[in-house]
């Protein structure tokens, strides 16, 4: 067995058990916040925030890969950026969906154009643009254009992150690291899920980069054959 495969197996097993244990904590162990108006739907928090954490992690890797690609021009950095952008976008999509589902019981509306939600939606569209540019721009320029778009996306990610600190709006203010924040069992469940999703992100990155390398190898060999 190749060493890479054994690491993938370890990551797969770790992700599976951590995510399953996280589910147990969310559904069976942690108490519902006594101060929340939405009742048990408050527990969406334990998925929603880690999902956004993974999305930002993905976009951070995309930013690093894109900037390094623009500086050095080596394909491996662009490939890394592309794979991380794809995973980041999947998680932003889920983050938006869970946010909409949580908004209804919490605020009695599905959506509102508050700064956090609006900038998050803009972020999603920026990365749709990233993938469209990669797919349809002239091949000689697509990677450079996409890298620049990902830098714009990073600026927007920062605005998304800061929106609830800069403007007081519908979206709740940050709870972690503030006075009177989360109770210890809630904090433990939250951090546990954060760790579980982070391990899952690493697994997805390995799977996606392996796929990209295989696809590139197929293209390289096909071109040599032609």
């Amino acid at each position: 067995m190749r060493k890479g495969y054994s690491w993938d197996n370890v990551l797969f097993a770790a992700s599976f058990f951590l995510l399953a244990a996280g589910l147990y904590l969310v559904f069976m162990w942690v108490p519902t916040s006594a101060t929340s108006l939405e009742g048990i739907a408050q527990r969406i928090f334990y998925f929603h925030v880690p999902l956004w954490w993974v999305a930002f992690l993905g976009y951070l890797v995309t930013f690093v890969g894109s900037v390094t690609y623009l500086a050095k021009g080596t394909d491996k950095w662009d490939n890394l950026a592309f794979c991380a952008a794809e995973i980041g976008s999947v998680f932003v999509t889920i983050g938006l969906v869970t946010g909409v589902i949580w908004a209804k019981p919490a605020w009695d509306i599905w959506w509102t154009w508050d700064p956090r939600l609006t900038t998050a939606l803009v972020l999603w569209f920026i990365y749709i643009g990233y993938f469209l540019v990669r797919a349809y721009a002239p091949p000689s320029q697509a990677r450079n254009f996409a890298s620049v778009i990902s830098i714009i996306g990073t600026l927007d990610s920062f605005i998304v992150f800061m929106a609830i600190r800069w403007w007081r709006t519908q979206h709740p203010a940050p709870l972690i690291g503030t006075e009177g924040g989360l109770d210890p069992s809630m904090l433990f469940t939250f951090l546990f899920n954060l760790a579980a999703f982070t391990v899952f992100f690493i697994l997805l990155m390995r799977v996606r980069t392996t796929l990209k390398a295989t696809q590139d190898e197929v293209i390289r060999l096909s071109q040599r054959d032609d």
Partner: protein
Amino acid sequence: MEKNFGYLFAAYLAILVIIFAYVYRLFRAQRKAQSDLDALKDRRQKKD
């Protein structure tokens, strides 16, 4: 059943469905790419 349990369940289901669909797509694409790669290598070997 507790108040608003349906929303919690819907959120969890959305996560599960989207992640499962993405992972399934990745594994299918990997399988196809690997079989294309094996076929190409095979063809090259026969050529040589």
